């Protein structure tokens, strides 16, 4: 456990004069972490669905296959998003 005491910011240093107080932007770090977690969870759902599907009868399998396809599509979308954000971030406005 860290023995370092967390730095305490005085409220007046954290609060703005207005609605800016509410502007806690989703960070690239946090967004990337969310994507990584979701990709991991999606892969796990696919793995489990594939196992179940292999054990089921043909009748039950049709529904499982549809769900599996939807989950695979979602996984592709998540991975594309991670790449898209990485690329676009590199082209961010440089300022003045």
């Amino acid at each position: 456990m860290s023995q370092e005491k967390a730095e305490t910011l005085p409220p007046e240093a954290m609060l703005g004069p207005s609605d800016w107080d509410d502007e806690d932007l989703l960070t690239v770090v946090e967004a990337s972490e969310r994507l990584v977690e979701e990709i991991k969870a999606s892969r796990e759902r696919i793995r489990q669905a594939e196992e179940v599907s292999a054990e089921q009868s043909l009748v039950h399998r049709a529904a499982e296959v549809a769900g599996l396809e939807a989950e695979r599509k979602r996984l592709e979308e998540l991975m594309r998003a991670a790449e898209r954000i990485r690329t676009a971030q590199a082209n961010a406005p440089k300022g003045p």
Partner: protein
Amino acid sequence: MPLQDDMQLISVDDHLIEHPRVWADRLLPKYQEVGPHIVEVPRAKGGPPSQVWEYQGKTYPQIGLNAVAGKKPEEYGIDPSRYDEMLPGCYDPVQRLADMDLDGVEAALCFPSFPRFAGTVFLEGEDRDVALACVKAFNDFILDEWCAAAPHRYIPLVILPLWDVDLAVAEVHRTAARGAKTIAFPENPSPLGLPSIHTDHWDPLFSVAEEYDLPLSLHFGTSGQSPRPSPDGPLAVSISLFSCNSMYALSDLLFSPVFHRHPKLKVALSEGGIGWVPFMLERADYVWERHRFYQNVNQEHRPSELYFKHVYSCFIEDRHGLQSRDEVGLDNILWECDYPHSDSNWPNSRKIAEEVFMKVPDEDVHKIVELNARRVFNFPRAEQ
């Protein structure tokens, strides 16, 4: 599953960050130097310089690029940062559409950042001509650039030159003709040094809003005040109490002449949640029953009656409010996801919505996530 595939999620409270050229691309050359532009300043804790807005000679440390960029949640604080530390969907409308697709969100109403949510930053600065040009430039940006990227997916919200009601009315005429769907207005103009809603000052503005059927969007915090019970309390106190701003705004409206003078006016309370609404209405009606006789309040219409006719409230996750949806008013509830603020559930807004609405009938869900917003903001689905 109550949230059906054909129900489109419409978020009535999202946010955009203005890119560095929003005003530079639109202001006349004589205003360029004093108009909003990005400057770089050294960061207190080292690293690449922060990018901040400068306007009429004043630097604004909270620029909408601020807060928690690049930090872990336990390190959140208010600290300016840079565009390259933000999600591109914050400032790029095409990237935003991709973020919305991933999130399962069809359409979004985006509030400004640097101008503040109701454009009140342009009340500051001595040169009103510059301020008016800046208001118009922002509205041109939102109409011609941001929303034009996908007109059926962005609900255009415009800001006003609040220091002059005649100019504000003129800007409503100008922007309504070009597709504006709602007007940002402070939750309470009085703390900003402007006339209160209990005066007749705003009547011309509210009348023109009625004329074009443009709802006023009142985002919490736009009065310039944050709930702060103790000066040395943690920020968490303020964040957990933000909805109180919407309670103040609602009570102020319900006991004001506004809805009596403007029977067609609509008001959307943004980001305030809904769970408190039944209590507030019960309390307001109780007060009206007992105390209206000796006060300058309308004697004929109960506050709750005015609410259900004029006011709309929204939520991200508010299970308590959703359980009380009949008392909040099924036709008065809107949905929001608050992207790109960290309160949002991106990229799982639709998934979370499915869970939140699991025990709510399909018909009610459809009203809350889509149909009410389309009706209130006159924003029909795109024809296939």
